[in-house]
């Protein structure tokens, strides 16, 4: 069996990639995809730990997380579409009408 630390390393790398993506990319959709990557890194960790503990809890949590992520997608994409309609752009650097 692959040791759980391998999964942990992979999940940590995916999580870091996701976090980096949020910080450096400027397109709202790409940022959103990076956030999904972070959530899925956590999912991977849940499944890996659940397998090593031989318990089902962690695997069930993944379903919760997937459901929540789907709800977030619905709201997030709706927000992005509304922004696109007013600004004709989803570049977050252009979202700077408020300062201070």
């Amino acid at each position: 069996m692959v040791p759980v630390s391998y999964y942990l390393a992979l999940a940590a790398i995916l999580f870091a990639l996701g976090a980096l993506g949020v910080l450096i990319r400027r397109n709202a959709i790409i940022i959103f995809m990076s956030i999904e990557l972070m959530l899925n890194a956590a999912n991977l960790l849940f499944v890996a730990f659940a397998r090593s503990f031989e318990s089902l809890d962690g695997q069930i949590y993944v379903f919760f997380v997937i459901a929540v992520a789907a709800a977030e997608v619905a709201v997030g994409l709706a927000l992005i579409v509304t922004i696109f309609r007013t600004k004709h752009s989803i570049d977050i650097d252009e979202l700077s009408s408020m300062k201070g």
Partner: protein
Amino acid sequence: MEFFNSADLLHALPLIFLMSWATILLLVAAFARAASERIMPALAAAGLLLTGYFAARQFGNPASAFNGMFAADGFSAFITLLLVLSGLLAIALSSDYLKRMSLNRPEYYVLMLFSITGMMLMASAADLIVVFLALELLSIPLYVLAAFAQPEPRSEEAGLKYFLLGAFASGFLLFGIALVYGATATTSLTGIFIAAQSGLEQPLYLLIGAALILVGLAFKVAAVPFHMWTPDVYEGSPTSVTAFMAAGAKIGGFAALIRIFIVALPSISEQIVPVLWALTALTLIGGNLLAIAQNNVKRMLAYSSISHAGFLLMALVVYGQDAARFDVVASALFYLLAFIITSSGSWGVVIALEKQAGKGLEFSDYAGLGRTQPVLALAMAVFMLSFTGVPPTLGFAGKFYLFRAVLEGEYVGLAILGMLASLISAYYYLRLIVVMYMQTGNPKIHSERWLNLTTVGAAIGVVVLFFASEPLFDLAALALLHVN
């Protein structure tokens, strides 16, 4: 194994009731649109009142339900009552404002009720995965509410910013939960406590996990350095939404922080307290210094709400000490009560002065308010004094109990820092009073029945409740956490 029984449903009654009520209201909004625009505020308020009644009946008999995933104790009942209060104040502030800004769509109240359910669940969650679900239930309706004034670009922008940073923060929270699960093989708060007591194979996982959970929730309560979204979101959202967000989201976030740290993580308090200390110090200093530079009242109140998150975090720093622990919970709850009333009232004044398209929000727009609108100006002055912590206001009592708890925990440095922060904050709160009373101008205000009632009522409450602060604090002290 039994999944749940009728006793479980009874313990979760306030939550289940409000969720069903909100769902029914959503159907009412869909099928009786014209009528619901008029009656929706009243229906939403009635639902909240009934929820408050059910929660009050639970006071004093702690129980845990749904296989230990849900706690119904004094703490959750008290938080529910606070949420009902802040929800009612928010509805009263919203109803006329929405009509004036032509935003009167009945979904608004339904989203608000859904969000309040999430906040209630935050206080009752006895399992980390429930905390995650509650946080999302709290946040997703708020993202929509922040963008409710679309196609107004600033509101859309606020919604998207809040959404992206909120989802980013829940990523941290979830990864932290996964690591804690990896360390302890459980996500139940008491289970984590027991596992940590009996020694862990990988104590580092627990530590990193706890830190990530702290980051995720610090975003929600807007602690520095995780506060970047706050001023923009507070400024861009419709003001009635901001008023609700400032009070409600803060209650939910702190309820979860307090329960997680006190119930599950006392064993790592030695390592986590210095982090909390630094977070508190940054929030107190950062929030107050940034508020000084603001000329927009909405932004100033946003930074002020950051600094109040700092004061509430002060209570959390003391969490590891058994002796001070219960005073800490009580003082945090009392401070939340003072903050809700003061903050809702001050947003009421902002709403009264706001004009279309984000006008009427600068400090200079308040010039001369003391002469032309003495009642409103006096109310605003009371709120500013309460924010600063000047007697005889509820804000003073809140700070008094908080500093007392911090001193009992022997964090003298932190108490001094809090005093300094209060001093700095006096500058920008008093500046508004000076502008209102000593500069000349002719501000136009909107005089609306519920708005006036809420603002004046909150101002009277802030002063009158100060004289009842002793019994109120005793009530908060009864709101014990059900530990193990």
